[in-house]
């Protein structure tokens, strides 16, 4: 059983959803970012999505745009993201680590070189926001050759037939985007959430984690009733982009993570 499967199995046995946390690598600063992610893991994240900053994050709301911008202004690069991932892997052998990126940054690094590096580091998979099912053949063979999961996304806009095609050969987990829109916190849960997740889980060969808009422990627990995992990003990054002293940021993020468990 691979690491991601083990994590979901362990969480299932513990009767809770796997907590997946997104953090933009390089925010609030390249130095502090690794520490912040270590705190996120220490306070209870089962899977960490390491966000690669991009100049034009067109699927992200204001908070992650800001986080991306702060990271880039301080010289963050994919190479440094990989170093951070490597350090985290050494210290946290049981945590799932997924590289989360827009496609262009990966493409410029070189897909073959990247996937080989990720496998060597011990990263579990890649999620590419702007690489839908139709374009994934560009990356998928390299992922398969290196034993990496290419995480698929499904949204409320995805028709049933398309959903079946997307998840047919899914590995790792499937990311269910809860709302039509960009990342960012929202009040309340979409009314169709339970039905959509039930339909998706019925056809998915792997666990389903849901994200987009989850801001609190209450929301996370509510979503966790219908999904195998919950994903939180903007709510975690909001303190990180606040400009406050790092110890305060670390404490607030850590406390949030603990409340999400």
């Amino acid at each position, binding site marked *: 059983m691979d690491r991601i499967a083990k994590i979901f199995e362990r969480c299932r046995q513990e009767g809770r959803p796997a907590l997946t946390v997104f953090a933009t690598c390089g925010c609030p600063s390249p130095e502090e970012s690794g520490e912040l992610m270590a705190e996120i893991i220490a306070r209870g994240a089962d899977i960490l999505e390491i966000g690669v900053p*991009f*100049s*034009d*994050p*067109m*699927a*992200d*709301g204001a908070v992650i*745009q800001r986080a991306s*911008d702060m990271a*880039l202004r301080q010289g963050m*690069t*994919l190479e440094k993201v990989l170093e951070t991932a490597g350090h985290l892997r050494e210290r946290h052998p049981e945590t799932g680590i997924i590289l989360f990126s*827009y*496609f*262009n*940054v*990966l*493409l*410029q*690094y070189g897909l073959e070189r990247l996937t080989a590096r990720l496998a060597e580091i011990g990263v579990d998979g890649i999620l590419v*926001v*702007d*690489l*839908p*099912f*139709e*374009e994934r053949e560009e990356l998928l063979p390299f992922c398969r050759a290196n034993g990496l999961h290419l995480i698929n*996304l*499904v*949204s*409320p*806009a*995805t*028709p049933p037939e*398309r959903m079946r095609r*997307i998840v047919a050969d899914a590995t790792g987990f499937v990311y269910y*985007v809860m*709302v*039509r*829109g*960009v990342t960012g916190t929202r009040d309340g849960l979409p009314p169709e959430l339970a039905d959509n997740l039930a339909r998706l889980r019925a056809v998915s060969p792997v666990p389903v984690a849901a994200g987009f808009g989850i801001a609190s422990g209450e929301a996370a627990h509510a979503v966790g009733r219908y999904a195998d995992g919950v994903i939180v990003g903007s709510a975690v990054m909001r303190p990180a982009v606040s400009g406050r002293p790092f110890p305060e940021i670390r404490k607030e993020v850590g406390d949030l993570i603990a409340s999400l468990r």
Partner: protein
Amino acid sequence: MKTHYGIYGGQYVAETLMPVLQEVETAYESARRDPAFARELAELLTDYVGRESPLYFARNLTRYCGGARIFLKREDLNHTGAHKVNNTIGQALLARRMGKKRLIAETGAGMHGVTTATVAALFGMECEVFMGALDVKRQAPNVERMRVLGAGVTAVDAGSATLKDAMNEAIRNWTATADHTFYVIGTVAGPYPYPRMVRDFQSVIGRETRRQCLEKIGKLPDEVIACVGGGSNALGMFAGFLEDASVRLTGVEAGGEGLETGRHAASINGGRVGVLHGSKCYLLQDRDGQILETHSVSAGLDYPGVGPEHCLLADTKRARYTVVNDEEAVRAFELLSRLEGIIPALESSHAVAQALRTAGTYPPDAVIVVNLSGRGDKDMDSVRRYRETHPAA
């Protein structure tokens, strides 16, 4: 794959937008085959836009250059003052057919925003235009025009606060509102089917030009020249001549302060293959794949990417792509104004400059057609400011 042009194009968007793109594609394929759609589009192009646009023999310019006869395809005479409206009318008709009640658009200089606001007014649709905060300041008159036409203008502060950031924000808005909103993309870039659709709507330029050449001159042109930002006016012109191997196709990119300075917007000549805004194309980016800010005296060419079909035409050498910098473009702007009494848009001035370079290399019976994609009224401030810091020699 039909969504790609060689290795270029594609649909590099978030999953939430994929079904939306497929809905647009299905609707477009059906509209394209519907004679009623074609009839209504043709009628609006005639009576509302004022087509066909003249093919004008620029005698004074020809005499000045010595060499080929230079003709201007007068897209500047269209309603709203540029070629953009050919496309916005087509897309608005499609939006109405799909039952969408709201149009959104990105805009740089404001021309595409103004034409989208115009057709939204015509069809009684709600309209929101996304515009970089810097451009809102630089192009105040166009912001006013959009507001008069009833559109909302949203200033985008993110990133470099220019066209690419406006497009990011339009895509974000569309992702959340696509059930009732149609995104009117202004150029042959973006995810499929936009490159195809915009090219089809703009190809009226090339079709008319080809026919006018045969009727007026009795032969095909030796060369057609058009400026390329995203590339819609150029592709519209080229589309009429792709099968005519004897016609040289020349696209002109914005060289800004010069290719060697790095401050330009010449994606094909100065970029590398990458992915932005849903499509793979030549892209101005740094080593790490972060998108660079672009520079051009003409806001309409100030875009880091370029349409995928242009990338393929460049690779196959069916078209060639040259670079004209700010100074040469502004000189062409001044020259055409003085010699012909036609004030061209700064974008189109890049194409005029290219014609000035090459006309003299042709014999007098040769014919060059320049796509005069827009009028220059909007550029008075830009040219004045440019000349304040770069006095004419």
